[in-house]
């Protein structure tokens, strides 16, 4: 239970960080952290199916696609 609380707080911090970071790469990494913690939480809540999908797509592929898109456009939010 205490783990779930700690993870949830960390997830909230990462989510707020993703909103406030001006450096888009940092924002994307914060989004990946949200996905990763969500995946762990899904596992703790006994939904391993969803946890696997979240880890592979949310934390892996989406992050890579965002980073490539940022590299092809601009790194800093204006």
């Amino acid at each position, binding site marked *: 239970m205490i783990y779930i609380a700690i993870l949830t707080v960390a997830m909230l911090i990462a989510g707020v960080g993703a909103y406030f970071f001006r450096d888009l790469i940092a924002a994307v990494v914060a989004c990946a952290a949200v996905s990763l913690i969500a995946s762990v939480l899904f596992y703790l809540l006994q939904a391993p199916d969803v946890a*696997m999908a979240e880890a*592979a797509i949310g934390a892996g592929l989406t992050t890579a696609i965002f980073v*490539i898109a940022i590299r092809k456009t601009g790194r800093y939010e204006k």
Partner: protein
Amino acid sequence: MRAFVSFSVLALIVVGLALSLSHIPFGNSTANTDRMHVAKYYLNNGVKDTGAPNLVTAVVLDYRALDTLGEVTVLFIASLGLGIFLSWPKKEGSEDDDKRGLPPASLIVRRGSQFLFPLILLFGGYIFLHGHLTPGGGFQGGSVIASAFLLMFLGNTGYRLRQKTLAVTESLAGITFVIIGLIGLGVGGYFLNNFLPKGSVFALFSAGVIPILYAAIGLKVGAELAGIVANMFGSGSEG
């Protein structure tokens, strides 16, 4: 003023939703109207009906297999849209970024990614072939396979993926799904009927058509997501 109006509308909606949800007896079996009827049916009869001990798979590929076909189609359309969008002719002088090129990664990164690539592919295949027994399935296995291709793209500059191979894999997998559904329609009377023998529970070759369908979905999702990654890297070779 405008912010106040929108805030009060939002608060009204939230309070209304909360009040109406509080009257639905989720999970309350003693209530007069049992909202968990379908879920209980799946829990009690799922293994017997489908032969798949993983009840998520039993729902996704037996009771609600048609919805899964829709999901796969949605992913296909998303991949197609991204492909069309990224294959638009570029403006003059705007392709410096791709031409600039990156220095090749170090030997350790290159060899490491090449060593891990088949292992990750194997793991993805394991996930979707055991989808009816253990957690996971076609979507999860497919995304793990796509992440193997992503690793190759990241670790090896100039890595290319043949778009035609991806397209053929994806089309064959999709056609397999629909053909199995049509055979079920012919044999058992409804689309995606589980017409093969169920076998013994917990065996790899059991649960009828479910492993075949999950293999098809895994290959299709893997090919689609790998195609998206290849398109984003802009290095999918034509033909």
